[in-house]
């Protein structure tokens, strides 16, 4: 090592709590003792405000390069670019070393931080050292989650002639997309485009479909994971069930239908929806009288194929796979948390998912949009005979863009709200439809055009968040500011739709722990690198796809699912797998880097 670099290093810490656990002094001290490196300061002690201090410091320490390390060090880069430029140094000689990469964020991992700094000083790509390559022992893949992301990833891998196990928690694949009526902005019916894919999955020779199953435990490492799977008792034999539906007809127990977002009731033995894959029945143990009270068993008696296994128990099986694709998706925000909207109290305040089912021809009212009415027992239910709403209000950003709930934007609500407005206006041409929004985020291909079209269809767009919903004389009373027209709107409507945001599933955290991947502050799975590797995790054998990484619309989800499959296929072709070496030793890194930079110097 003849050339000693003269690098100044500055540490930037954002006040976001990520850097709390880290022993900053240790890292700062370490970096200062790397030959040729000068510690300039950190943002706590020396905030980047007065440029003259820095110009003098740089000149005094005779550095020609600058390294900014820490959490999102780029936040202060423009300041230093200017400093460099004004001190007569080459402003492009600034390197950023972001601790957000390589997952130091969640952990107090000084060794890793130091390694990154060392690599950055020596201008070596840390990937080459910190990632270790392991052999791909097992060529099978596990896909967790049977929504559109899981389906796409499975098909992608299976089509390249590799075995895939597709795990789905519920009784059918399809996920949220199957529940939607139409998809924006082209308005093709979700089922029409999704069901062929589902059927493909069901029939694919390379896909082993495991519905009604959950991951219990994951051990092993990239290329060779052992996964314990809980196969919940379906209580109906998949092979013998012919899907005739007699059992369901005769079943006396009812429960709210998950597929219809709770707008209807289903039987205790049921099929999630007519195009379900597999198209077989299952028993919900929570509502089944036989399971809860030990008597009934009507279904078993009437089944012509003798497929009902009332006493079936949960099973645990173990499979070995080389790669895992996580596509667990999301759940919708619980609108009840916004007390001012009265969801759950007022019968005709619905979530978007409920409306989605309501407009669907296969939904609770056969596609008629009606208000909830009281039945004889006093329950509020949807019927085809219910009154059609004369006015519908759609409220955007429910649970999203709100520090009291989720600060992030859920990315899809604007567009699906516009779509729902269109669907409602199509079915109820005389209804007055109003959308209350903050910003319309119609960003995708053809989205803006769709927005313009919706506006032309006579749907009223009001920029103003609705603050409160009250019920007066059976009508819902809304109050909001119409910002653009400078007035206060007090409107009475028959139905309010809450455009609820997306949030991680309840058990996302525990799954992340099981798999050894990180989650961000909102609970979404954290990708290896936001920009360059949005579908991988630091464990090369595990990729993430779809909304579980962050809210997304269908095309983005599908693209991401294919991208996740790309990493898997690459691993399968090369029979190699890589993983972040979390137990990296700084001394080894130094040794390795030095060797590496010598080689490259020789080559030059």
């Amino acid at each position: 090592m003849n050339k000693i670099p003269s690098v100044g290093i500055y540490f930037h810490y954002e006040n976001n709590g990520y850097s709390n656990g880290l022993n900053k002094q240790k890292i700062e001290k370490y970096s200062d003792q790397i030959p040729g490196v000068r510690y300039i300061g950190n943002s706590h002690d020396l905030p980047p405000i007065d440029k003259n201090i820095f110009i003098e410091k740089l000149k005094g320490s005779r550095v020609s390069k600058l390294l900014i390390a820490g959490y999102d060090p780029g936040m202060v880069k423009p300041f230093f670019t200017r400093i460099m430029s004004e001190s007569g140094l080459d402003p492009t000689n600034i390197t950023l070393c972001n601790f957000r990469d390589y997952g130091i964020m969640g952990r107090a991992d000084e060794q890793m931080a130091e390694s990154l700094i060392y690599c950055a000083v020596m201008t070596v790509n840390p990937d080459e050292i910190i990632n270790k390559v392991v052999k791909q022992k097992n060529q099978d893949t596990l896909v967790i989650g049977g929504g559109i992301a899981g389906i796409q990833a499975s098909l992608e891998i299976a089509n390249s002639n590799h075995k895939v196990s597709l795990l789905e928690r519920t009784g059918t694949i399809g996920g949220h997309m199957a529940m939607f009526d139409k998809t924006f902005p082209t308005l093709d019916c979700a089922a029409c485009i999704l069901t062929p894919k589902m059927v493909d999955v069901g029939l694919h020779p390379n896909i082993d479909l495991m519905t009604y199953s959950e991951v219990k435990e994951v051990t092993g490492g990239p290329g060779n994971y052992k996964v314990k799977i809980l196969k919940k008792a379906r209580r109906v034999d998949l092979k013998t069930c012919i899907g005739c539906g007699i059992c369901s007809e005769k079943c006396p127990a009812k429960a709210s239908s998950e597929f219809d977002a709770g707008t209807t009731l289903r039987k205790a033995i049921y099929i999630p929806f007519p195009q379900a894959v597999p198209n077989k029945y299952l028993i919900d143990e929570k509502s089944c009288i036989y399971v809860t009270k030990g008597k009934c068993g009507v279904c078993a008696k009437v089944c012509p194929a003798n497929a009902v296994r009332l006493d079936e128990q949960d099973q645990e099986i173990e499979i070995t796979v080389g790669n895992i694709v996580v596509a667990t998706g999301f759940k919708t925000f619980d609108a009840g948390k916004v007390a001012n909207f009265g969801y759950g109290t007022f019968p005709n305040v619905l979530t978007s998912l409920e409306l989605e089912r309501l407009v669907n021809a296969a939904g609770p009212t056969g596609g008629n949009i009606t208000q909830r009415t009281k039945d004889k027992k006093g329950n509020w239910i949807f019927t085809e005979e219910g009154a059609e709403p004369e006015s519908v209000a759609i409220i955007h950003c429910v649970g999203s863009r709100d520090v009291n709930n989720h600060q992030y934007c859920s990315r899809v609500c604007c567009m699906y709200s516009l779509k729902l407005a269109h669907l409602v206006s199509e079915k109820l041409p005389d209804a007055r439809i109003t959308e209350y929004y903050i910003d319309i985020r119609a960003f995708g291909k053809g989205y803006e055009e769709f927005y313009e079209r919706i506006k032309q269809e006579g749907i009223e767009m009001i920029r103003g968040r609705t603050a409160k919903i009250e019920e007066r004389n059976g009508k819902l009373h809304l109050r909001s500011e119409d910002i653009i027209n400078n007035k206060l709107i007090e409107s009475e409507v028959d139905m309010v739709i809450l455009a609820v945001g997306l949030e991680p599933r309840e058990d996302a955290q525990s799954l992340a722990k099981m798999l050894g991947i990180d989650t961000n502050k909102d609970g979404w799975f954290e990708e290896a690198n936001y920009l360059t590797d949005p579908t991988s995790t630091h464990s090369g054998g595990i990729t993430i796809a779809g909304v579980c990484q962050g809210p997304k619309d269908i095309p983005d989800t599908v693209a991401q699912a294919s991208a996740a499959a790309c990493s898997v296929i690459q691993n399968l072709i090369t029979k190699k797998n890589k993983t972040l070496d979390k137990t990296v030793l700084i001394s080894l890194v130094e040794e390795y880097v030095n060797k590496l930079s010598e080689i490259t110097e020789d080559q030059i």
Partner: protein
Amino acid sequence: MEFQPTIISFLCNWCSYTGADLAGTSRMKYAPNIRIIRIMCSGRVDPTFVLKSFREGADGVLICGCHPGDCHYHEGNYKCLRRFKLLHKYIQQMGIHKDRLRLEWISASEGRQFADLVDNMTERLMELGPSPIKEIMEIA
């Protein structure tokens, strides 16, 4: 009952047929007088098909392709245009009103334009009245 014309139309698979599908998925209403035949490209439209349609009793024939420059097969729509011009001259010589045969460009996103086009053509054909071709051609 009011005269209801029948329009045979040839739609290219990539743009116009998709555009017509879009009109459907967008539930845009238009006159029920059109009968759509899917072909891969407007370049496949043989004048024989047009004449045959008139002969079999169509009151109008509509050919739709991708917009110039957008052809999925590069230039099929231009070829269609050239044939169409010659054919159009011929049918006028044969005493068939020129508005009974139309060539229009409909892209995959022009569901609305397609619906308007059908309505517009239907209206025109209603003005023109039933096509006599089939009866005249019949040999007693």
